[in-house]
């Protein structure tokens, strides 16, 4: 049955279906409803909810629960994620699965509480110290807030690595139909976990390796894992991209606006299409290169001053002109504005002959 649901609440509904057994969090707008929904739902099914004393504590509690083999998550927004970065690095170093939701708000500093997409670098490029990667999934609807949270749990466990749901104030706050199926996921066996039992007595969760050769071997092992994941886990979605002369690229709420912009551009006679990365790490580079093969321009739109656009440029490697348009501060680029920008850039580009 389809139910009207808020994005932030859908995260927890997805988490419950994914077999999440613990949530540790700290309130912050616009992510607080996630903690509130967790407080409401998890204790009813025998799972733990605890409001931590800080995001620093929350991420380390998640580290503890993950060490014990539980599916665990936390959620916050920009400033809280900044505080969690050390813990995320430890999770990656100790190879612990954990789901972390970032409902991005305006920054830097205290910024504001309106939506932005300015945490791309911090989440996708690491943010914490050391050679590690986060899985990053980017929902564009309330349905995906649930579905991609579930996927994040699966990826986290499959690769023993943190997985981030990178979303924004709009997707978190909005309501849309949500359809869930009574199919409950279960965490895989975790023979490596420390459970306080005879069988797991020899287990050790740690990220410290003082011998350079030993640490190098560990980091190389992580690297190999990331390489493998990059090959098989990238996901994307296309919209009217088959014959696109201009390929618009955007994720999350922006991709929703870009759909409207694509339709509008086509009404104005421009064959526009949309490429939406669903995973930001791994970035769907090959698929993007493929989709842009016959495009004359790739137009990246973000609610940032230009972060994902760097990955787009890397993926296309100079093969096609990449243009960027961004709004920040909680302002959302609107379809008309995007379309106007698109037309201007097309007119400016001499190679177009338009």
């Amino acid at each position, binding site marked *: 049955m389809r139910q009207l649901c808020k994005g932030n609440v859908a995260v927890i509904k997805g988490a419950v279906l994914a077999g999440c057994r613990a949530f540790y969090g700290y309130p912050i707008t616009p992510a607080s409803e996630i903690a509130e929904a967790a407080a409401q739902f998890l204790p009813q099914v025998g799972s733990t909810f605890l409001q931590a004393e800080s995001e620093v504590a929350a991420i380390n509690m998640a580290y503890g629960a993950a060490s014990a083999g539980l599916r665990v998550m936390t959620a916050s927004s920009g400033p809280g994620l900044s505080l969690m970065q050390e813990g995320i690095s430890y999770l990656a170093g100790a190879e612990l699965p954990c789901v972390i939701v970032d409902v991005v708000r305006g920054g830097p500093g205290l910024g504001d509480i309106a939506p932005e997409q300015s945490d791309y670098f911090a989440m996708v490029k690491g943010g914490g110290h050391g050679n590690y990667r986060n899985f990053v999934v980017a929902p564009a609807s309330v349905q995906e807030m649930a579905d991609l949270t579930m996927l994040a749990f699966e990826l986290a466990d499959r690769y023993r690595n943190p997985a981030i749901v990178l979303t924004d104030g709009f997707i978190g706050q909005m309501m849309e139909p949500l359809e869930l199926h009574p199919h409950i996921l279960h965490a895989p066996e975790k023979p490596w976990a420390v459970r*306080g039992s005879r069988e797991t007595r020899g287990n050790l969760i740690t990220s410290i390796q003082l011998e350079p050769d030993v640490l190098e071997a560990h980091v190389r092992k992580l690297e190999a894992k990331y390489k493998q994941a990059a090959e098989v886990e990238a996901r994307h979605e296309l919209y009217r991209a088959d014959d696109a002369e201009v390929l618009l690229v955007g994720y999350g709420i922006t991709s929703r606006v870009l759909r409207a912009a694509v339709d509008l551009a086509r009404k104005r006679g421009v064959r526009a299409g949309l490429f939406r990365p669903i995973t930001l790490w791994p970035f769907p580079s090959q698929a993007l290169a493929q989709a842009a093969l016959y495009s004359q321009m790739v137009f990246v739109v973000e609610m940032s001053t230009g972060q994902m656009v760097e990955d787009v440029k890397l993926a296309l490697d100079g093969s096609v002109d990449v243009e960027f348009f961004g709004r920040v501060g909680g302002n959302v680029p609107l379809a008309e504005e995007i379309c106007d920008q698109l037309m201007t850039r097309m007119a400016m580009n001499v190679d177009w002959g338009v």
Partner: protein
Amino acid sequence: MSDYQVVQSKSPVFYNRYERKSELQHQTHYCSGCGHGIAHKLVAEALSDMGLQDRTIFVSPVGCSVFAYYYFDVGNVQAAHGRTPAVATALKRARPESIVIAYQGDGDLAAIGTAEILHAANRGEKFTVFFVNNAIYGMTGGQMAPTTLVGQTSTTTPWGRRPSNEGFPLHMAELIATLEAPVYVERVALCDNKNIMRARKAVRKAIELQRDGVGFSFVEILSPCPTIWKMTPNEARQWVADKMVPVFPVSVFRDRKPPAIENGGPRQISVIELLGLGEFSPAVEEPVAPRSGRRNLTIKIAGFGGQGVLLLGQVLAEIGLREGLEVSWLPSYGPEMRSGSAHCHVCLSTEPVGSPLVEHPDVLMAMNEISLRKFAPQVVSGGVVIYNRDALPADFAVRQVRVSCVPASELADQLGAAKAANMVMLGALIELTHVLPREQALAVLETTLHDGALLEIDRRAIDAGIDFVRKAAVPAA
């Protein structure tokens, strides 16, 4: 030939060889005379004597004891600097049958991790903390700790700790003992055999209290650090007795039953029931055919906070959903809402909703004048503005838009329910657009409001809106 025999035994909680250590696997990495060695031994012996080895999870901190897992043959988790109590909290909650040992130094526990230890103690987490206070940062080479004594030199207090610059030593045991929840707080000193025996008893007691599920136990262990203090092991022990104990008195600060705690958790249900899936899900309403062929509508609703703007939007989305439409509801949120105005966007569509942001609404429902002035110019040509007054402001005009002035607040007041102005607006919308059926609106309210009287008021408010629009003259162009 002597008439006595030296018996050296090792707790089975220690590994026979320290294989996780790369070199000298028969000896520890601790300096001779270091208190960590004694503290480890006391803990290991207690665990083996109590038969708790298999159940134990040892959380090592950042500090000299970061490698405690070289030695303890138990489940091991290494935590970030200062965060051991947070990690231990979740471990214990995840595995309530386990024995969780949080082992921390003074930099770890009393500086960077002050928040975590206080809050774990305050929650009465049912694990055991061993706090090794050596008045210095050992691992990083002798910087000041929060427990460094006044006048004590360190690499970062070269002229001695001065309270005017660095403040006074922190008394963690005393601090923890001011909290409600902890059941046992004691400070001991590893300065001579008598005190070590006392420490042994305290360590055992703290673990026993955890084993018996009693509550949070905390043992502060004053501990020699000969290398950093630049002393012989004997001098260092003496320094603990002579210098540290006077500042950090050896004492039991708390030993009592936990305070009685209410334990009212929620009723346990299945995930399927919780999420309303399967047989528990409420009956789905049948779509009611609309009177017009039109099904797609974008709506912006705006007004003051408290006028039910966001709720009206949600009701519209819910009606649309039950009509089998694709819907979205996007609110303004945050300070704007608190400072008095609120608006939301609603999309109803037969196709998946593209952008949930409504740039040019088909319908604007303006609950106040500010919203009218701000948003009416955005309405598509041929669109509808429903304004919550009996007339537009004299100086205001919009072109190519159908304006319907519906004094919703007034009509609601007449019904004796000022709060129902938003439902009057809903009635007006139903009658003006014919996209959403009245019956479905009532069905939605019936399932969301569980109060019959309220439902009746809302029904009358909706009908008042419908009637008003029907009776009104053809709206001005």
